[in-house]
């Protein structure tokens, strides 16, 4: 039984990723097809240089070598620098302050998705220990070396006092954060929710995905005949979700589980399709209504095959379908907020991204993958996010469907 979301809309959004800080950089890269991928080099990601080199490309965010301002020094680590960089963009902090003043800090909730949070700091602590340095201890350290550290930090920076949760479901984390946020608004447990997430490059994910043989030695090519796996990327992004209809409305969402395998997708895309069906049912829409789908499109052979089959099976010919992993890399827990940023940009400007880096699309996918950017009227955009553990989430974004309110009543 699909649940009916209460109308909620995004009133402010900001992201930072390998294509640059802020929504303007994202819009420009989307139009021009600019990629932010670069070879993984020897620059440290934390306090120590890498112990081993991996031949791969990454979506690295520049400008993260500067420590946090002195006030925030106890929180200093790469993931929080990344979150901090994102928070400086697009007037986001000012928009949150206005909402906090309007409703009071206790009525503004925070739901952030991350897969590894500040584990890079923990990796540094272990490297330090191996070199004879003391291991961190004390109350501040307890907060920093924790999965919830990101939410704790962002809550403090924004001065929020409402319900504060970390969602950590691998690569669906920040997509599922929107579902959690909508439910909080539906039950009147908040008047506004800051939703988003951050995941930064760290040894765990680089060597972990390498161990799984899922890392591409060249720039990743989603849906390409010669795709060889993912490029890891890093990103942070935040959206302000408020109750009521609006031009950037969360029309529906779906969450499901593959119940199949910890690290491989269901071969028939069963869970992904269920998440899509749920999202469509909750929005009262058919798949034909989707003008743009931001594919998860990680560029692993299996994931792309399963997602392309879903595209061919369920989406209309007119739907513009693209993956942006060739621009940003796979940003793991931040993929949902980054995908949402592309969707909202498409709704606002009509510009939809191409599938950058892909030159020779797999013929099995029937020419349905859009390789180049395009501009047209976009009324409904879908954001796909799938992850380890068999977790699936689909978000549907669109303009206030006030004109179709009667139809929605029948849904």
């Amino acid at each position, binding site marked *: *039984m699909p*649940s009916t979301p209460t109308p909620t809309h995004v009133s402010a959004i900001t992201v930072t990723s390998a294509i640059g800080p802020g929504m303007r950089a994202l819009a420009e890269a989307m139009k021009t097809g600019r990629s932010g991928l670069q070879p993984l080099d020897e620059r440290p990601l934390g306090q120590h240089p890498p*112990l*081993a080199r991996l031949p791969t490309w990454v979506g690295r965010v520049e400008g993260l070598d500067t420590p946090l301002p002195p006030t925030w020094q106890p929180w200093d680590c790469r993931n929080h620098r990344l979150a901090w960089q994102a928070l400086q963009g697009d007037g986001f902090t000012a928009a949150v302050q206005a909402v906090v003043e309007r409703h009071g800090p*206790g009525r503004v909730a925070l739901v952030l998705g991350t*897969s590894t949070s500040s*584990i890079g700091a*923990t*990796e540094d602590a*272990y*490297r330090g*220990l191996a070199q004879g340095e003391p*291991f*961190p201890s004390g109350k501040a350290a*307890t*907060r920093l*070396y*924790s*999965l*919830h550290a990101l*939410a704790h930090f962002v809550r403090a920076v924004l001065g929020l*006092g*409402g*319900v*504060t*949760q*970390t969602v*950590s*479901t*691998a690569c669906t984390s920040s997509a*599922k954060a929107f*579902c*959690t946020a909508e*439910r909080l608004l539906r*039950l*009147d*447990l908040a008047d506004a929710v800051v939703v988003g997430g951050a995941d930064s490059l760290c*040894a*765990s994910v680089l*060597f*972990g995905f*390498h*161990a*799984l043989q899922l890392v591409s030695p060249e720039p990743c090519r989603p849906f390409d005949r010669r795709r060889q796996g993912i490029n890891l990327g890093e990103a942070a992004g935040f959206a302000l979700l408020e109750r009521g209809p609006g031009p950037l409305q969360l029309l529906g969402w*779906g*969450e*499901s*589980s*593959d*119940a*199949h*395998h*910890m*690290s491989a997708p269901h071969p028939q895309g069963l*869970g992904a399709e269920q998440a899509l069906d749920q999202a469509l049912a909750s929005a009262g829409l058919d798949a034909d209504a989707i003008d743009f789908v931001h594919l998860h499109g990680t560029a692993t052979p299996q994931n792309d095959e399963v997602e392309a089959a879903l595209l061919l099976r369920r989406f209309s010919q007119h739907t513009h379908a693209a993956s942006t992993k060739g621009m940003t890399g796979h940003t793991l827990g931040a993929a949902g907020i980054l995908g949402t940023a592309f969707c909202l940009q498409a709704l606002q400007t009509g510009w939809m991204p191409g599938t950058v880096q892909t030159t020779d699309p797999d013929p099995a996918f029937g020419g349905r993958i859009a390789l180049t950017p395009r501009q047209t009227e976009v009324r409904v955009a879908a954001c796909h996010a799938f*992850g*380890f*553990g*068999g*977790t699936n989430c689909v978000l549907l974004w669109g303009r206030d469907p006030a004109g179709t309110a009667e139809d929605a009543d029948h849904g």
Partner: protein
Amino acid sequence: MAEHRAWIEGIGIWAPTLPDWPAACMAWRGGALPPGPGARLPAPGELPPAERRRAPASVALALEAARQAVTASGRPGHELLSVFTSAHGDQPVIDQLCQTLAEQPLLVSPTRFIHSIHNAASGAWSQVHACHRGSTAISAGEHSFAHGLLEALVQCTSQRSPVLLVAFDTAAAGPLAQLVPARAPMAVALVLAAEPLQTEALALDWQVDAGRPAPPTPVHHPVSAALAEHGMAAALPLLEVLAGARPGPVGLPLDPRLTLSLRLQPSASTCHPGG
């Protein structure tokens, strides 16, 4: 804020000295933990043999508490939404992963990496029950139990659906034990429903209140005191009430200025569900 109602249909627990909910009820009512060094964590018999052997502590812990709660509820597992909450994830796995990364990163085990993801237990549980419904994995530091329960109650109420909550933390391991307080593992599971299937289900009225939790949330019971250094110890005030060791209400802090206020109707004088 408005008060909502959910029904508790099943309870599960696992700690080395408390192998199931009936044993826990007996302990809380009798005033002492069972004697002895405690049991070893049971292998997750529901998983296929290969995965059972490799299952890390967090997955075994979570699946055992979940198994008890789902069995007691009488509901098929595949009908449940699920919420998994843990403050620190699988500490032995994270310790081993960070150790390898600090020494020979190219030797990271792919299985260990997969087990380090916070939703490993959520994924394993979905597989066991062939459950395709939504499952989430959350964390909220020292308030991870209260937030897990809140998320489960919110899903139950907003989606009018039964929800499995599984709250678990392993014992700290390696150098991280300086930062992680848990000295022993513990998992707690509840099946919550919007419409009760059983007459013996307990009604749980809940709301979120601004302000600090009212007394008597601090743990005074000797059994709770003995479990205070276990993972998920923040669940103890609610467990005392569910076991009938003292009357409610219960206020669980969501953070310093927000409380999840819980009232059982009628107060739990008998030790069910499942007890």
